[in-house]
């Protein structure tokens, strides 16, 4: 076997450097770096998760207090409205009111209910608790005095009001009125 020349030895030296460099990088450093990167990503996620979790846990008591208070507020607001009524119940309510004021209705028609929703809320969301407004148009006969009493008494009620009325004739006569009512009812679909 012949001796290696100096040029060959230098080339071998460079080759061994390249082998050490590339094998260290490829088999040791790079996988290790990759592993460290993955761990750092995992750590960042864990930090965020913990931060989020601890914030939620710290807020738990406050949220529970808010729930109780909001429920109380809703109950307090909802008590001002009529509970949900079918059309025949609305018809009975209006007829009774008119008869009480000596104004038996000649005709009565009920429109579809309108949901009163906050426009800022996402309308696609299922909203189970809301208030509806129902228009009821009536035609009655009575005196101005009866109308005055009716308007006065309706104004005292929380969730019904007169949206419009028209009269024909003067105050002394028994005249025909068209009276439109708005009835507000509270709907809780969760119950």
């Amino acid at each position: 076997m012949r001796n290696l020349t100096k040029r060959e030895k230098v080339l071998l030296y460079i080759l061994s450097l390249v082998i050490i460099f590339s094998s260290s990088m490829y088999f040791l450093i790079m996988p290790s770096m990759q592993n460290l990167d993955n761990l750092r990503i995992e750590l960042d996620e864990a930090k965020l998760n913990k931060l989020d979790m601890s914030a939620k846990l710290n807020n738990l008591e406050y949220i529970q207090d808010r729930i109780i208070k909001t429920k109380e507020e809703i109950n307090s607001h909802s008590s001002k409205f009529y509970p949900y009524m079918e059309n025949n119940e609305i018809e009975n309510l209006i007829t009774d009111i008119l008869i009480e004021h000596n104004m038996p209705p000649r005709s009565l028609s009920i429109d579809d209910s309108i949901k009163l929703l906050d426009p800022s809320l996402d309308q696609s969301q299922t909203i189970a608790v809301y208030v509806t407004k129902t228009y009821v148009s009536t035609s009655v006969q009575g005196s101005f005095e009866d109308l005055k009493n009716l308007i006065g008494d309706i104004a005292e009620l929380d969730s019904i009001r007169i949206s419009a009325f028209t009269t024909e004739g003067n105050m002394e006569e028994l005249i025909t009125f068209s009276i439109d009512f708005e009835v507000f009812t509270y709907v809780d679909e969760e119950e």
Partner: protein
Amino acid sequence: MSSNIKMKNINFVKAYKRNDKASIYSKASFKVAVSLLIFSLIFASTYAYIGYRNLQTKKELAVYNEYINNDKNKKLLEQALNDEIENNTLFSQKKNMLVAQEALESVHFFTKSDIKEFFACGGSSVTISNIIYNNELLTISFDAAAGSVNAISDYLDRLKKTDLFGNIEYFGYEKETELNYTFNLTCHLKAVNER
């Protein structure tokens, strides 16, 4: 004597040259080996440092994971999430309630005392007929009849003095007979929050 002869036979120059060559080769090999070793050590220490960082990160991660995966914390988080959803739903419901409340309260409608005040303005000198009341438009329009022109202006003054109307539209009268002047009024009601 014989040893001196032997000494003389040895070629020192040649031997020296041979030794020197060998030492040159060994020195070069040593340098190569040392440089390769240093080169390898650099990589090994880099690898060791990264390994150490890995270990530290794993320890740190374990602390966070312990908190996150703690059964008690998990249950509390589940409860917190459910509560948050319930709170958001209730908040929407409350907003709907407030919208309804506002719809009910924002528009002025006659109270018993308002009605009395309104009809009292007419007194015996003005009679009212054909009333059209619209709560949404906040208007009440009607025909009226008075015994004199002065009675009309007095009536308008009385209406203005009540706090019920923001604006009263009056476009004149028509003389029907000597003691009967008819006119039409459209009164714009003030909303509750303007009164």
